[in-house]
């Protein structure tokens, strides 16, 4: 399933590098020059654009996955300890 366009893309970075930097790029954690190279490459390379988009989707979906809201099995004891501690330190603020 090689890229069908006739010529290899002329780019400062390879697709393999883009794929490795995708997460850092999405978090804006690459230096300006590299960022420019990646942006230019993404504009002309469908494979990389798809890949980076998928990593972005993963990042976003992981953040909103339904989570089990867990409470400590002994939350009553914790709360009591907290209250007791607060009473012992009335002046602390």
């Amino acid at each position: 399933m090689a890229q069908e366009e006739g010529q290899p893309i002329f780019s400062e970075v390879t697709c393999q590098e883009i794929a490795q930097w995708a997460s850092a790029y999405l978090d804006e954690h690459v230096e300006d020059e590299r960022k420019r190279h990646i942006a230019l490459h993404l504009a002309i390379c469908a494979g990389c654009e798809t890949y980076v988009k998928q990593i972005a989707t993963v990042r976003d979906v992981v953040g909103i996955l339904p989570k089990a809201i867990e409470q400590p099995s002994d939350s009553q004891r914790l709360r009591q300890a907290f209250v007791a501690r607060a009473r012992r330190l009335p002046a602390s603020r």
Partner: protein
Amino acid sequence: MNVEISGVTESMSHRMVASRKPELNSSATVANGKVALLARLRQGDERAFDELVTRHHSALIRMAMGYVADREVAEEVVQDTWMVVIEGLGRFEGRSSLRTWIFGIMIHKAKDRGVREKRHTTFSSFESADDDGDDATDPSWFHQSGEWAGHWAFPPQPWDDQTPEKLLASQQAITAMNRAIEALPRTLKDVLILRDVEGVEAKEVCNILKITETNLYVRLHRARERVRQAVEAYLVGRKPTM
């Protein structure tokens, strides 16, 4: 929590002229809430304590599980962590964030417990997982030689119009992603939970885990890549005609 942050961020956006990093926005707004929470905790506000526990307990348990043998021990570790937090609140100086402090205590306790349970050897093999390798992506996806070297040999197939929301509408997709996350080795799971699930800023994740930003992104990308593959497998499995 993410929703909360983005809501506040938008209202603040007119003030964030110089900032291009979205995480700077959220850090400024979240910081105010944190300071208020800390003040309430110090005043002995029970509801503030409940809030704190509710906010972090699940992630603490999930991370502790990576260090100790089972769920029960993880719960003990986190329970102990909360006791230390309660005792230490008066002395907490706020040089790190409350969250960094709490997660630091948990990791310390969990490691300690893990060592006592003689999982030490398993640990060191985990810890030495090389962060310098660049194999988050499979080299065989790319041409390795010739004029196409470094270009996709097998480019990813677009996920049509899959948005996070659409993926969440499928219980099967959710299960696939959760399984992929739970199956991650600890070093990868820690960064994914903190950065992507809990939305902790990169710098703070590095502080909590005591790793460099380079390490963080190597690990984070490996973790995201494994979840990406799980989504891909789910999408391919759903469409047998592909």
